[in-house]
């Protein structure tokens, strides 16, 4: 009797781990299959004008040199883009970067260069971001997005409360 009791003591209490391991494996399989890993993201800063662009009273700032970049959909292919820099048509992103650099250097010193980016209503957002990115690559920091050119009648409802709407 004494010998049998000693053997039991050595063995200890036997815990059946199988159900727990089963559950944990099921959880792992669930997380692996159902989970989606986050993609690394970046961000491009572009501030909205503090004085809203629709305001008619704003005087052009003499200390600032403005470059206007307009993104337009291609004439034949709506997926395509034409960038207009001060009304000059450009078709490649590298040309856009070079043009922005050229204008920035020829604008003279003493003036802050401000880039205004605008786009056609139907142009892909992708191309507007490309213009923003090109301006950043050209070393231009002060980038402002122009107010929309879409008629107020086509704006989503309800209409904004605090924006002084221009008369159509």
């Amino acid at each position, binding site marked *: 009797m004494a010998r049998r009791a000693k*053997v039991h003591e050595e*063995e200890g209490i036997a815990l059946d781990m199988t159900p727990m*391991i089963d559950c*944990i494996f099921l*959880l*792992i399989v669930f*997380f*692996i299959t*159902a*989970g*989606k*890993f*986050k*993609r*690394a*993201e*970046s*961000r*491009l*800063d*572009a*501030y*909205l*004008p*503090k*004085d*809203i662009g629709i*305001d008619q*009273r*704003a005087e052009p700032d003499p200390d600032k040199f403005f470059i206007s970049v307009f*993104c337009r959909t291609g004439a034949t292919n*709506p*997926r395509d883009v034409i960038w207009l820099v001060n009304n000059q048509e450009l*078709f*490649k*992103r*590298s040309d856009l970067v070079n043009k922005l650099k050229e204008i920035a250097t020829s604008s003279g010193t003493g003036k802050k260069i401000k880039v205004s980016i605008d786009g*056609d*209503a*139907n142009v*892909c*957002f*992708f191309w*507007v*971001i*490309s213009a*923003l*990115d090109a301006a*950043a*690559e050209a070393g231009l920091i002060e980038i402002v*997005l122009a*107010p*929309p050119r*879409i008629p107020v009648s086509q704006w*989503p*409802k*309800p209409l*904004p409360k*605090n*924006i002084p709407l221009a008369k159509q």
Partner: protein
Amino acid sequence: MRRAKLQIEEGIAIDMTPIIDIIFQLLIFLMCVTEITKTENDQRLVLPYASKATPETEPTERVVINVFPKGKSGMLLYSLMLDTGARDASVTVEGNALTWGDLQKYLEIRGRSAKKTSGGVGVGNRELVDLPVKIRGHRTCPFQYVQFAMIYCIDMSYWKISFGTFNIDDFHLPAVTEDYGDQMNAGDLWNPPELNKLFQ
């Protein structure tokens, strides 16, 4: 002899502790990194590429607006195929789809407690909200819908705007295949001629 019989009855003892440790580590890792609930960054969106964007750091307090184009039938367009018939956009904030009016209210409520600076004459000297807003627009979303999101930001006196982008380096990775980033419609990838044009 008696001892030998006892050993046979007991079998070979396998120490399960390390395997359980590793499994628990795996479990904790997967629970931490996977996205169970809907977070502010909607992972269905395919963002535009940018080379000069600032890497995203740990987010501080901010508002994230996701903008999807919406097709004629009202379905969201996750694919990279440009649908020129996009009639509207769907805006999601913190995993919830909002109407434009709801977005207006949401921005108003969030802006109440945020830090403010004084605005210019053009806005009637009203206070501007310093809370940053990140707009995440789908790559093929018509620009007007992103502009609408911006209109409501202006409306509610937000001015610190940034746009969500993917890193351009991802494009050069060998792992980038034709169906990269677009599980819904692999064949409709933004095709190489446009991308070549971008990287010229």
